[in-house]
């Protein structure tokens, strides 16, 4: 993926070039590209004078960062304790089975990235699955396929709209 150096630069200047803002800068890059592109990290390293190894250290320590490109749709299965006792792991297994990927990975066609989170604090409606920011409450094994279909369909619809 080509990155726009100007954009990355603006993230750095947003925090006055301060080294303490490294995590915030990485968060902004991640929000823009959905992952941390290598060139962006190199640029941050050179312009802020932070060794690349230290940046990679931070980027791999925190769960929120990804060094690999993520899919068009982000599926997050909550595995907090409440969701766990209500069957969250079975929901995750079903996503893994249908998408043929393990948690943390992206499907080959780049459509879906499957992730887990250790609690979103919506325990009353567990097991919770969040797709692209939409919350799906009281998920069951049988609902998994229809959730995925909905986003696949959305995609198709959007494409059709663009074709027209």
């Amino acid at each position, binding site marked *: 993926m080509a990155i726009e150096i100007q954009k990355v630069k603006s993230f750095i200047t947003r925090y006055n070039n*301060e080294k303490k803002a490294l995590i915030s800068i990485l968060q902004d890059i991640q929000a823009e590209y959905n992952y941390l592109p290598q060139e962006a990290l190199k640029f941050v390293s050179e312009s802020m004078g932070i060794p690349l190894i230290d940046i990679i250290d*931070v980027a791999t320590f925190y769960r929120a960062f990804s060094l690999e490109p993520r899919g068009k749709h982000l599926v997050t299965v909550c595995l*907090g*304790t409440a969701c766990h006792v209500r069957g969250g792991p079975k929901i995750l297994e079903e996503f893994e089975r249908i998408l043929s990927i393990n948690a943390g990975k992206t499907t080959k066609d780049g459509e879906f990235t499957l992730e887990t989170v250790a609690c979103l604090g*919506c325990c009353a409606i567990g097991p919770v699955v969040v797709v692209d920011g939409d*919350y799906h409450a009281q998920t*069951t094994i*049988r609902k998994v396929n229809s959730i995925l279909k909905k986003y696949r369909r959305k995609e198709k619809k959007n494409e059709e709209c663009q074709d027209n």
Partner: protein
Amino acid sequence: MKNVKTIKSIKELEKAIESQIQARESEKKSILTVSAGTCGQARGSLKVIKSLENAIKIENLEDKVKVKVTGCHGFCEAEPNIMIHPQNIFYQKVQPSDAEDIAYQTILNNKIIDKLLYSDPISGKTVTKENDIKFYKKQKRILLGDNALIDPTDIMDYLSIGGYGALAAVLSHLTPKDVIDTIKKSGLRGRGGAGFPTGKKWEFTRETLGEPKYIICNADEGDPGAYMDRSLLEGNPHRVLEGMLIGAYAIGAREGYIYVRDEYPLAVKHISIAISQAEKLGLLGKNILGKGFDFQVHISKGAGAFVCGEETALIASIEGKVGVPRQRPPFPAVKGLWKKPTNINNVETWSNIPLIIENGAEWFSEIGTNGSKGTKIFSLVGKINNTGLVEVPMGITLKEIIFDIGGGIPEGKEFKAIQTGGPSGGCLPQEKLDLPVDYESLTEAGSIMGSGGMIVMDENTCMVDVAKYFLNFLRDESCGKCLSCREGTQRMWEIVTDITEGKGKKGDIELLEALAIATRDASLCGLGQTAANPILSTIRYFRDEYKTHIKDKKCPAGVCKELIQYLIIDDNCTGCLACLKVCPQEAISGELKKIHVLDQSKCIKCGACYEACNFEAIKIV
């Protein structure tokens, strides 16, 4: 927040508060309060708000009623819920399609809509008023109660419940020492988990030489199953800020940080709005209320690391580094953020401060037990009828929380255990239900208060699986600095995993106990030191369940996949094809109205058939 003038003195602030209180009291319109915290929004409260606003317009009721969007009311089970004042009506699980009825029947014609009322799961009776609902009855909602009164994105609304009055009182006639003495006298202890006396902590930081001093609000609520801090930040962010302002004045800090979990976007949004409004009003910034007191607050967003809830790791993270804890002492009070004296308290602790100042130390210390004062908010979740945030006086028993407030276990199942304190806590069985909830009792029983997660488990929860769950969490979140924690949590997880997969051996339980104790004793920070709790407490109270897994290769709760089988009970099977249709493996065969057959060699134990069957014809053995 249009055309708001800066408030320059205590008198002006007091006047502003007074006029907002009067405006609230003389309000002629009915108020329709809709809860829209993360949980409410996830259940569609934003659509409900839109429909209500539309319906009010259509019925021309704009001068009779106004819609107020608030944070979470705590009763997650009933979301989206609305309250109507002054009529004092509580409607639950409201759908957008109910909006017209609410406007026409309730607002215009004063009629109550029965189907929207809460119905008690035990008696089946419907309840109209919020306070008559059992869930709320035994609670003491000194913190959470205000969530339902105010729009968290409007500082004036906070003023209208007397907000920032405690700050005015502090700056007008209390010295920093007076404030610290009051907090000490109140008996307030840290709500983040460890329970250190707050006043003492403040005093240490104040008395340490070194400038500048910092204060931090720990909002990195990483415990799975705990979300009270999120609810306070979302629903009443100004109270947190007011608490921090008072703390900063007492400690002598001019800068503060709020370290908040990035997984809580709404909390980040609301606290950001609150900070900018307080700045505009002159309650944050330079020379606050003309008293020569400067204080500003920054937000630092976490990036998903549980260990950053530990104070030295949190400090490292604010500094932009990897969140790895360090040896204490020196404590942050001596060497904290950028090696300067720093005081860290959690969201709930900060929220208590304005209340203590306003109502006095005695008022606060009258609530609770000898060693644990005030209230504590718990998130009551898992296998429980009334899921939600409950605020109770310290000293209440677990039984009261689970059965009186929580309404017991759903589907008539048996209670099995309650897990408190998150991954650092433990599981307590039936015989501990009379335990009063305070810092000491919970620790003695092998668990901890922690930040306040309470996960209820029923007969279908496997305790070995629960231990495995927490160990998996801990090994994943261990920062890796201490060998004891890095390897200890990993090895314990491997052993417990073996046990759940039918590969457990004689001596495993004893080995787990030894590993747990070593991990506890040799680790540097709270994560490792408490990592033993989930394993030790489950072994202590549920040893037989471990033994059954190891010896008989059975999981009595029917959870551990390798040890169970799904079977079709011929007598119950109606031949409805439901299970057959959902089986992804085509492991079930049969025809309509004929008993179905499950081929074990094809079954992947996904549980889809069990979920699909309406006749209890599939059992787990």
